[in-house]
């Protein structure tokens, strides 16, 4: 129901940030995000608002679980 895309933060300006995916840029609002992002972070963007910051550590942890559970090499 909710199309939300990870986009990389390029610049922060008060309550808005410039973000990009594949080189295409847009400005999103930061009114809703709990943990304020830094330049270089990925945020999940929905309808022009950043909802959350993507957690690299958690992503790696999930992939590690696959490596152990499924016995394959990923990260």
């Amino acid at each position, binding site marked *: 129901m909710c199309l939300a895309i990870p986009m990389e933060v390029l610049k922060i300006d008060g309550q808005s940030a410039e973000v990009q995916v594949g080189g295409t840029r847009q400005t999103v609002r930061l009114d*809703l995000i709990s943990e304020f992002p830094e330049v270089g972070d990925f945020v999940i963007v929905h309808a022009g608002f950043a909802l959350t910051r993507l957690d690299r550590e958690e992503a790696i942890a999930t992939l590690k679980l696959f490596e152990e559970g*499924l016995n394959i090499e990923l990260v």
Partner: protein
Amino acid sequence: MNLFDNFKDPELCKVLLDRIHSELDGELRFMEVCGTHTVSIFRSGVRSLLSDKVVHLSGPGCPVCVTHDSEVAAFLELAGKNAIITTFGDLMRVPGPDKKSLKSAQAEGARVKIVYSPFDALKIAQDNPGDKVVFLGVGFETTAPAIAATVKVAREQGISNFSVLCFHKLVPPALDALVGDPDLKVQAFLLPGHVSAIIGVEPYRFLAEKHGLPAVVAGFEPVDILQALHLFVTMRGEGRAEVVNAYRRVVSDAGNPKAVSVMNEVFEPADALWRGIGLIPGSGLTVREEYAAFDAMRVFGMELKDVPEIKGCRCGDVLKGKLSPEKCPLFGKACTPAAPVGPCMVSTEGSCAAYYKYRV
């Protein structure tokens, strides 16, 4: 390769698929309640790779699909009031009473503008101070906070020609209504990742605790979806039924308290009508008294009108997993994406539309 691209990895998907199929005992009937899951399952080809024993059901997961006829009637009524209507593109083709839609209203002269963000709608209000600009607020908990934040900015900046027609819906009350049906044929729930990013995991606990149903909060890449299916299989094997957060890179168990508080500041829960299902208590949002000046219903003195249910439409049964889309007598005949009858065919991500569009 980007770290997050690992969640698209075809090799990892193959391993997970093999595991699901070799470890599954009996039939697994799982339901997703998120249109983005519906589309992802079809578009990625996951659906065509699942064995017949894994039965994919699409629940009421698309806010556009479940927007009630009487709500569409309200959009159309507004379109006739010479306001500038701003909307997500999704709503343009949703048919209301007499098969009218925003597209047809536009053809008759209504001023309808498609925006990507409610914030763009606010800019349109600033640029057209002589006009009343209304944003059509649909969507679940993912979208409602963005619209609430926009209303707050409108109030802070004194933009008085902007208002919202608020028909937001809430996921947990709808799930509660679904699982309360003794005929429901669902064994596990794939929970919507982005709604969960806002509300967290707690509101779903009742699925496991009260109903013994396993449920997994999942992302939208093929690996995310297959991981969730594998978790269902594992839990069944171990005789467990839990609510698991498998989308930890985006969803924290507590959700996003800031977004929830913005949403609750502007909106409050209310009963809501769901197309194909009917009234579900406490499953919608309405604008709080303090923000009445931004509530289009109040600004234009409107009330929801009674609109009869659509005859012959079995969407209610499809949404509850009792009927597979192609078994509906209207499917592909009286009801197609070009001339949709029920909610499931209306949106590109409705379960009937996805069946119609993607199945080889």
